[in-house]
């Protein structure tokens, strides 16, 4: 086509839009003229006027079809039809507000929830990490062959990896670290990371201001510099650019601020206020015995595959096992893409949520489809007529699809609102309690809007296509059937199928939610071995610049004595760390009266340094022997109290009291080779509700002191009432010590925050799905009762009782629901396996959950069917018969 032609065409097109109406009216006139001419011709040929007319009509072949096809030739027809269909659809919605509201609410919820969860999945799982070539960054961990999948590494191993690896570059260590900084006279507890200088180039992130560490500042062993996070710099330092080069006063002496990282920077999702170097020389690393509390990060070199890096690291580790069997026996190395390390734990939960919203969306879809279909029954006659008069089927399908798309588009817009609300609810529910990496970056941006609208359109097509085809199929049958009763037989069949599908889908959803709920309830009812209710905890850090361990113990003792004297306090005690979820120290140990086990054979235990009265305060049962007392001091005989689990595993029926253990940590004297005498046995404590019981050793604080302590206070009242007075007592002793107050209930609750949030969310989705399914069953049964009004009238006139009519209708509904339940149970069993990793002490095929959900669904479906059935049976037979 030449440009000129194209211009002309465009002009014609524009003109034809303007002239559209005239043209349409003209078309009818033109057809009429044509027929008249033809008739006249036949008359001239000798036919009777009637015959001539009939022949002319025959010759012409369906006025409606010709004009319909001709209209299709008019270019703007498609566009205009769409506009007309949209307007028509909107008008239909406006005229049936009940239907419109039900359908729109259904769609908005389904689409909105899907968009919200998808945006979480995208933020957390799908988006690449904000590092240079994030796919090349790996985390390196060690692991024992039993149990724990990722464990901290030995610095001595790290030193060798760094030297020997050819496939990895920028190997650096990362570990948690805490500091107390004094800013404007206020002590502040900072949470940060100790990082090798290599970590920043490994991630490929440059500081926003200043610089990161140098090799000398790290491996030179001078611990004098600090890099701040953007967030800390902005909220606490007042975003001043001139802080670079100035010292920050901390409990470990002044640290020179050399850089500020860009906003949102994290190392593998760990939030940090600051970054400081390990400041250990290579020689110090090599000499480090045991494992620290860090893992390593590195970058896979260009031209090297991930698999090659894994193979090389395994080889190096095998060398290390030979070189240092004490350290490395029964261990191996784990190399994991950093993205996997960050999201591996939350992925199953997020995917379960995605599955749940997907099911809700499907139920919503089926629901709207059946609503549309039931409504289209009323229009089947209209469609039948139009088809008989020559309207092409494609045209009718297009019209119906447009109507459902109008519905879905409005539903999608409303869904955006729902998604925003979902985000808020989600963030409120998850809060800071669940460490989901990158969740704070959650947002509703353009891609999500596109995604939502795409889902909406797909939903529109999905729930419009079945009604569109069913309602426009084979007009002859439709017309014939329509003469007898409202909708065609085929339409009823499709409606029944939709009910079955809907019931099956919501059963899958309910069963999944039921499993997660049951698992969560079990988790919550696990006996942790202590009584968390009524206990207030206060984490206190004394500035180590001014306190040595001995001074610290004096100060803490003073604080505990004063707290114990407060009204309403039953007892107060201290420990080096919170009781859950992590141990203060992990160590190996062995019995003095037995030969020392070979490397890799030594049992390991978690260790908690505590003050006298700790067991009583926490509600841990003392089973044998005695508690620590003030007579256990730094200079007295080293003593320990052990857990029942340790006794069972190491002493098997022997009396443990008076026996001695060697342990892998230092006594207050600085010696590691002291022998610790067991003076007591206490009941087991679960530090992870869903984890196994661990063997535990308690040591007196006096023999294993520190400058940090968690003060625990058992009260007779709401523990929070005491928080101000406890803080005051600590501040009076040391004004520069930061105090963090939590109830023990909160501390414990946080450990099961993820399963709680997951089960709540899935339950919400399941309830929504169930409600939608109930509405669906109700809608279809109500429609069916309306359609069968006449039949019911006849039955009642012939002597059927109200009761038998109700039984007929409810029975019919229940048959469908039962089929749906059966299919749903099958599908749920197939899908339940994928939830396995998320379940605690509940089998994926938990018979209670499955039968419970089936019964619940049947009950609700019965109610949903009974309501319209009641309406049917309350009709007077005469009214029922008159309806037609």
């Amino acid at each position, binding site marked *: 086509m030449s440009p000129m032609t194209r211009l002309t065409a465009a002009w014609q097109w524009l003109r034809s839009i303007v002239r559209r109406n005239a043209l349409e009216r003209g078309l009818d*006139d*033109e057809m009429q003229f*044509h027929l008249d*001419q033809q008739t006249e011709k036949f008359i001239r040929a000798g036919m009777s006027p009637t015959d001539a007319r009939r022949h002319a009509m025959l*010759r*012409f*072949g369906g006025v409606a079809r010709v004009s319909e096809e001709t209209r299709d030739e008019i270019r703007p027809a498609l566009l205009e039809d769409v506009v007309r269909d949209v307007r028509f659809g909107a008008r239909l919605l406006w005229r049936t507000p009940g239907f419109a509201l039900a359908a729109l609410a259904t769609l908005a919820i389904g689409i909105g929830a899907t968009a919200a969860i998808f945006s979480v999945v995208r933020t957390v799982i799908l988006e690449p990490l904000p590092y240079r070539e994030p796919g090349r960054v790996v985390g390196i961990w060690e692991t024992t062959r039993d149990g724990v999948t990722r464990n901290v590494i030995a610095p001595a191993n790290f030193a060798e990896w760094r030297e020997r690896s050819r496939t990895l570059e920028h190997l650096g260590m990362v570990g948690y670290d805490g500091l107390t900084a004094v800013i404007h006279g206020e002590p502040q507890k900072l949470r940060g990371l100790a990082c090798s200088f290599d970590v920043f180039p490994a991630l490929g992130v440059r500081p926003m201001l200043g610089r990161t560490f140098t090799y000398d500042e790290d491996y030179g062993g001078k611990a004098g510099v600090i890099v701040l996070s953007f967030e800390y710099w902005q909220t606490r330092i007042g975003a001043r650019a001139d802080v670079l080069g100035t010292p920050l006063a901390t409990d470990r002496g002044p640290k020179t601020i050399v850089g500020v990282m860009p906003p949102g920077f994290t190392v593998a999702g760990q939030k940090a206020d600051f970054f400081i170097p390990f400041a250990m020389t290579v020689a110090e690393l090599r000499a480090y015995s045991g494992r620290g509390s860090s893992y390593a990060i590195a970058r896979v070199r260009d031209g090297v595959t991930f698999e090659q890096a894994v193979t090389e690291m395994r080889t190096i580790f095998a060398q290390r096992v030979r070189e240092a069997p004490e350290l490395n026996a029964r261990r191996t190395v784990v190399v994991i893409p950093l993205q996997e390390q960050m999201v591996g734990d939350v992925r199953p939960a997020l995917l379960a949520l995605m599955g749940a919203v997907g099911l809700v969306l499907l139920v919503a879809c089926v629901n709207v489809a059946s609503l549309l279909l039931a409504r289209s029954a009323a229009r089947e006659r209209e469609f039948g007529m139009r088809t008989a008069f020559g309207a092409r089927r494609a045209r009718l399908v297009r019209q119906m699809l447009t109507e459902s798309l109008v519905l879905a588009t409005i539903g999608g817009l409303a869904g955006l609102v729902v998604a925003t609300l979902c985000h808020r609810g989600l963030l409120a529910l998850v809060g800071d309690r669940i460490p989901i990496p990158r969740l704070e970056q959650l947002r509703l941006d353009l891609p999500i809007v596109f995604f939502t609208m795409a889902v909406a359109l797909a939903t529109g097509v999905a729930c419009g296509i079945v009604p569109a085809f069913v309602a426009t199929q084979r007009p002859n049958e439709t017309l014939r059937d329509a003469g007898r009763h409202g909708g065609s037989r085929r339409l009823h069949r499709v409606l029944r199928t939709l009910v079955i599908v809907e019931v099956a889908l919501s059963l899958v959803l309910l069963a999944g939610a039921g499993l997660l709920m049951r698992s969560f309830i079990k988790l919550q009812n696990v006996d942790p071995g202590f009584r968390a209710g009524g206990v207030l905890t206060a984490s206190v850090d004394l500035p180590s610049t001014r306190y040595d361990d001995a001074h610290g113990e004096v100060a803490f003792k003073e604080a505990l004595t004063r707290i114990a004297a407060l009204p309403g306090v039953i007892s107060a005690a201290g420990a080096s760390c919170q009781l859950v979820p992590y141990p203060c120290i992990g160590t190996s140990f062995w019995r003095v009266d037995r030969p020392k086990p070979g490397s890799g054979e030594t049992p390991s235990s978690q260790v908690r340094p505590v003050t006298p009265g700790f067991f009583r305060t926490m509600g841990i049962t003392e089973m044998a022997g005695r508690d620590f007392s003030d007579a256990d001091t730094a200079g007295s005989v080293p003593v320990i109290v052990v857990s029942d689990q340790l006794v069972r595993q190491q002493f098997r029926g022997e009396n443990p009291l008076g026996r001695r253990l060697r342990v892998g940590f230092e006594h207050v004297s600085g010696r590691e080779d002291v022998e610790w005498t067991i003076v007591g046995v206490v009941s087991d404590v679960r530090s992870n509700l869903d984890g196994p019981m661990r063997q535990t050793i308690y040591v007196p604080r006096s023999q294993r002191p520190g400058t940090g302590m968690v003060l625990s206070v058992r009260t007779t009242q709401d523990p929070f009432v005491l928080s101000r007075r406890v803080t005051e007592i600590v501040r009076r002793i040391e004004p520069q010590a930061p105090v963090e107050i939590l109830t023990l209930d909160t501390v414990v609750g946080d450990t099961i925050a993820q399963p709680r949030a997951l089960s709540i969310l899935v339950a919400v989705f399941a309830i929504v799905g169930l409600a939608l399914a109930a509405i669906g069953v109700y809608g279809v049964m109500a429609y069916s009762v309306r359609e069968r009004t006449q039949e019911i009238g006849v039955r009642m006139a012939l002597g059927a009782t109200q009761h038998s009519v109700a039984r007929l209708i409810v029975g019919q509904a229940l048959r469908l629901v039962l089929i749906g339940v059966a299919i749903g149970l099958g599908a749920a069993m197939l899908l339940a396996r994928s939830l396995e990793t998320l379940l605690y002490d509940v089998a994926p095929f938990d018979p209670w959950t499955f039968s419970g959900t089936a019964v619940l669904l049947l009950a609700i479906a019965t109610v949903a069917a009974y309501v319209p059935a009641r309406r049917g049976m309350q009709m007077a037979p005469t009214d029922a018969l008159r309806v037609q």
Partner: protein
Amino acid sequence: MATERGDILQGTLDMLVLKALQLEPMHGWGITERIEQWSESVLQLGQGTLYPALYRLERQGLIRSEWKVTENNRRARYYSMTREGRRHFGDELAHWRRMSHAVNLVLDASLKG
């Protein structure tokens, strides 16, 4: 009705309509009559194809239409060729001649062979 669509090669209908309009503006019925007459009643155009074709050609700007009064004093829509239409018809006709000549050559050859 048997001589509808199937018997007229796709694309030739447009040419026939344009040919009918070459001499003078005509209404739809007139066009069917003219084509039937010229083709010695072999080609009886079904209206189901004629009117869509007319609207299509008008959209393409090859013909235009206006309402006029017939000799019998009735209103009818008369179609006439545009300049673009004449040019297009010329091109199409040349193309058709080339093609039908080629097709005939092939068919004759196979007869002799």
